[in-house]
């Protein structure tokens, strides 16, 4: 199945980079501009805090979610809209190869772009704000960013595929996914604010000192479980007959 997933990956990446009509336009808008923005402009503006701030891991966790969400809506809804889905379903590719190929392409895009931006951001911060010292994420934070951005990409990809499988059009898929992301984002934000003061203190304790690693592991496990549940739901939803008749 791996060669089939790679074939799908080849196709999906080509489609991402050709969506502006030319390869140059696609690479520029889907790769170069986001990397320059996240790896040069924002670190330049952020200064040393880009590396040292406690909010940095949270930023890098949210980022791939939005990056993936912009492209994953197209996965099945786009094929349906452009009338290419039936030809794909009539091919020898298995259900899992098609589904995992779509998810893998979105994850590699979101996670890859995040890691590239992260690395470039370090270079930028050190060049512009280093003043002779090495500004570097603590090992724990770096590991957290790498792991959480992967899990975040997978979360957006699996949720996005599930939405795209059901949506009649790309626009509908994008709207549903955007609303879902906003609900989660603002839900978490306002949810934390609404907590009683003593709960907030306890929560802050969980994210500090010796508790941090344990909290990170728990958060990672929850995300991984959520990813697995969404992939499973997408696998259950992926039925050729249903996709054709939809």
């Amino acid at each position, binding site marked *: 199945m791996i*060669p*089939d997933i790679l*074939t799908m990956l*080849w*196709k999906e990446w*080509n*489609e991402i980079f*050709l*969506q502006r*009509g030319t390869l140059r336009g696609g690479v520029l808008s889907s790769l170069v501009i986001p990397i320059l923005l996240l790896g040069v402009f924002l670190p330049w503006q952020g200064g040393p805090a880009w590396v040292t701030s406690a909010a940095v891991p949270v930023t890098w966790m949210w980022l791939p979610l939005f990056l993936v969400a912009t492209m994953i809506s197209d996965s099945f809804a786009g094929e349906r809209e*452009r*009338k*290419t*889905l*039936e*030809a*794909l*379903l*009539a*091919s*020898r*590719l*298995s259900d899992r190869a098609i589904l995992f190929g779509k998810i893998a392409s979105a994850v590699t895009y979101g996670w890859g772009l995040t890691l590239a931006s992260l690395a470039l951001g370090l270079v930028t911060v050190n060049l512009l704000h280093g003043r002779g010292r090495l500004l570097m994420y603590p090992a724990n934070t770096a590991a957290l960013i790498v792991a959480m951005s992967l899990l975040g990409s997978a979360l957006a990809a699996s949720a996005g595929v599930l939405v795209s499988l059901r949506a009649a059009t790309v626009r509908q898929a994008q709207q549903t996914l955007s609303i879902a992301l906003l609900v989660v984002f603002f839900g978490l934000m306002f949810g934390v604010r609404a907590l009683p003061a003593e709960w907030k203190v306890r929560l802050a304790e969980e994210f500090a000192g010796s508790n941090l690693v344990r909290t990170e592991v728990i958060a990672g496990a929850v995300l991984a479980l959520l990813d697995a549940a969404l992939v499973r739901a997408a696998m259950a939803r992926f039925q*050729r*007959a249903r996709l*054709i*008749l939809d």
Partner: protein
Amino acid sequence: MPDPVIRTQGLTRDFKQVRAVDDLDIEVAPGTVFGFLGPNGSGKTTTIRMLLGLLEPTRGRAQVLGFDTRTQSGEIRQRSGALLEHPGLYERFSAEDNLGFFARIWRLPAAERRARIRELLEHFGLWERRKENTAKWSRGMKQKLAVARALLHHPTLIFLDEPTAGLDPVAATALRDELATLAAREGVTVFLTTHNLSEAERLCGRVAVIREGKLLAVGHPDELRATGAQKAEISGGGFTEEVLARLRARPEVAAAQLENGKLSIELRSHAQLAPLVSLLVTAGAQIEEVRKGKASLEEVFLTLMEEEVE
């Protein structure tokens, strides 16, 4: 007789209250072009989807290339190619990349992939335009590329769902010629749905006619023509009103009339002409020449459709 490539038994598919395919029994022999004729909405596309294992039948069963469509659809798709309702091309890709993607799907090795893509694009006259994005291509060119895609991996069987629909007559004829050449050259079995009767007559060794999901007739186009209304033109004299009335009274005569001094008779299915000639002679007519003609497939098709409506 070799095992059929396609065999359906009581194949039925319902969509809620609508029966799209109704108790279909057909067999398709290997190496033949099988035409599946019917008007729009008669169940042709649903049948193809069931044969490819994309849709499950509500009742009945189908075997394609020896595999059950319910349980072994992956094996069927592995060995067959399909051009379905839409060309299904990735219009952001060039023609070459479209074929390249599907060649990868069928795991053609790189050298074979390049050679096969070139061979097919050259055959369809698209090689010079292989680098072009297909978005701006004409429908005819897209259909050709989609047929090339269906043939890419040397399938044993290809399904073509209305391959010439929407093409202008010149493009349709060209594609038809290319299909005939390719089917013969590659020895592939073709399951072709169409509502173009001349296309079926020209390409198909065997045809089936369906309407509202029901199989109305199946056979070689000549056999079907023989079952349809036949015509006879008789030259001579003495074709009085009385003679014509006696002729029209016969059950095997659908119509009889004088046209430019010649007697034109339309016969019902399987009618014999000799007893009618004998009747004319007995009634006093002088017969100089009798010409018998078969109905065209189109006439047979229309008759079948009318019979069902009646």
